[in-house]
């Protein structure tokens, strides 16, 4: 178990015709025992970053340190890491037991008995003691995933690296494995870097989330932080499902946010936080913070036409047409408007986010009516 530091890490792919910057000056300080999830859309550089930590890709610039020691030049086998791949990468010609023992046989001085003991312990932890003698070809996807994780666990490394390990599993199994991995992390307390494109996985499993976009760091923070205080529009859009609604608004002299079919009077305290001279903003509101209220004040609501109603079971997702743009709302399951209806929607001051029109940076994150949270992790 050790700390992991990424110091200005950059990865550039150069070919005769072009230069691709996969990761740009990434700075990250991961504490011993932390579960970090690196998340972002395809091509954002998360897998590349993980592979650089593993030693499967060279680092173009910058330094990576485990436990304070620079590892840029170390071979993967010398870095004291273990990795779980998306495709599991099990050795097809070896049994499960041999797959799990192989790394220990190659890299350590442990006796056969000690190796066997470790394999048994890990197998018990992963619930695969009954398939130890089978070959990977005879196993289901979920079982192979457990074997791959078991193979990493027996190594007892300083850092675990997971490369989208649950992406090949069906939805139910994925949710089940998520809790399993979280439980294992609680037990082992080893520093973990987990890469995924699924923001739900990130939110449920992480101590801290790292959001990347096109090789650039967008935000690092706890799940609560990135949810309630996204630093820019991209993060606000990426985290949360259904994603946040964005409306281009104009701030009037009277302190009212105005757009087509929308009028929202800001509180005095909020108005003071905004710099004078700026009138155009992007308003962001999460679907779960919006309610349908026919009696809402005209100055604190918007109207939109219902387009599609999705019944999820516990909630309903309502997709509306707000002046030509999609607007998403999550409501309780007993609220079911008809398509084509015009409805009035409202939300509270403490659930609004304002973003800069030009840079997308967040300016304010709502104003609580009264202090709801005293501390954020």
């Amino acid at each position, binding site marked *: 178990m050790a700390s992991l530091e990424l110091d200005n890490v950059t990865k550039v792919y150069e070919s005769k015709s072009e230069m691709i910057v996969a990761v740009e000056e990434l700075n990250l300080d991961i504490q011993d025992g932390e579960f970090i999830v690196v998340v972002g859309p395809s091509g954002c550089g998360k897998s590349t970053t993980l592979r650089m930590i593993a030693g499967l890709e060279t680092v173009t610039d910058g330094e990576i340190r485990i436990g304070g020691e620079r590892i840029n030049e170390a071979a993967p086998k010398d870095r004291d890491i273990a990795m779980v791949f998306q495709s599991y*990468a099990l050795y097809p010609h070896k049994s499960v037991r041999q797959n799990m023992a192989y790394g220990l046989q190659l890299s350590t001085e442990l006796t056969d008995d000690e190796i066997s003991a470790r394999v048994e312990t890990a197998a018990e932890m992963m619930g695969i003691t009954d398939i130890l003698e089978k070959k990977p070809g005879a196993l289901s996807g979920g079982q192979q995933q457990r074997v791959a994780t078991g193979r990493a666990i027996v190594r007892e490394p300083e850092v675990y690296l997971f490369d989208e390990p649950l992406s090949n599993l069906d939805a139910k199994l994925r949710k089940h494995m998520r809790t399993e991995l979280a439980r294992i992390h609680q037990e082992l307390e080893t520093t973990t870097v987990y890469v995924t494109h699924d923001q739900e996985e990130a939110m449920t499993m992480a101590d801290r989330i790292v959001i990347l976009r096109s090789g650039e760091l967008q935000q690092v923070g706890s799940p609560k932080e990135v949810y309630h205080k996204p630093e820019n529009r991209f993060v606000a859009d990426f985290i949360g499902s259904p994603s946040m609604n964005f409306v281009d608004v104009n701030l009037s002299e009277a302190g009212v946010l105005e757009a087509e079919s929308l009028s929202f009077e800001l509180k005095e305290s909020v108005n003071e936080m905004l710099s004078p001279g700026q009138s155009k903003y992007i308003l962001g509101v999460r679907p779960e913070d919006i309610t349908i209220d026919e009696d809402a004040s005209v100055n604190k609501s918007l109207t939109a036409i219902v387009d599609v109603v999705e019944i999820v079971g516990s909630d309903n997702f309502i997709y509306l047409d707000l002046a030509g743009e999609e607007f998403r709302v999550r409501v309780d399951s007993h609220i079911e408007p008809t398509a084509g209806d015009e409805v009035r929607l409202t939300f509270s001051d403490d659930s609004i986010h304002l973003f800069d029109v030009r840079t997308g940076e967040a300016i304010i994150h709502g104003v609580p009516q009264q202090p709801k949270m005293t501390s954020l992790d």
Partner: protein
Amino acid sequence: MLNDNRRDRALLYIGIILFGLFALVPYYWVIRTSLLTNIAAISLETGFIPSLADLTLVSYQQVWDRFSFILYFRNSFIVALGATVISVIFAVPGAYAFARLDFPGRQLLFYTAVFTIMFPWIVLTIPVYEVFYLFDLINTLTGVTIGLSIFVLPQNIWLLQGFFRQGIPQKIEEAALIDGHNELTAFLRIVLPLSLPAVAAAALFSFLVAWNNFLWVFVLTSDESSRTATVAIYYILGSDVLREWNILMASLMLLVLPPIILYGLSRRYVGTGLGAAS
């Protein structure tokens, strides 16, 4: 599906039978002729299916007596085996390098190596003879072996490169790197054992091609001592005033026997090897 109703199925079978006849009749003819006497072979009275009384093994006897077939077979075997071993030894690491490594000139080198499969070899015979003459390799089994191993190398590289690229996931090698191998030992201890079917298939193909080769042996040898069975058969046909078809067919039968036996023995590997390589 094609087989669903009886009419379609009947047509399919008829098609298969016709094609089968077209393909198999020549083989039957070879077998038939080899079991007849010389006169009976060319006589119109023997008929398409000869009567049992006409069948005889005299042609095989004659092949054995008159031609030093053991020598020719031995040469064929040495040369084919040697060419197979040499080309596989070079093709396996070469194909792996083409599949996994990125080096300047990789594309060019690969396509050059493989382009030679399509090359009209007969055009090269004279320059090759001159080069081999320079190295004193004419009329030697060594020379023929070297020549044939070069001849079968491109197809091995092609076959194995495809296999390494598609048949072995790169992530398995990466897992091996993390487990404690370096690139070389990962190749030797993990990739190669998984590649045995494909390598066996490549070896079998090489052996067949080298065994059946006529052109290079013919060009590079004139002495009987270094002649292989394919060229020997040519001389059997051409060297006698009276064409003895039955003897020719008998020697043909003997010629194809070792490859058939080899193929039968290795069928288990070849099926999976081809499947994995495709």
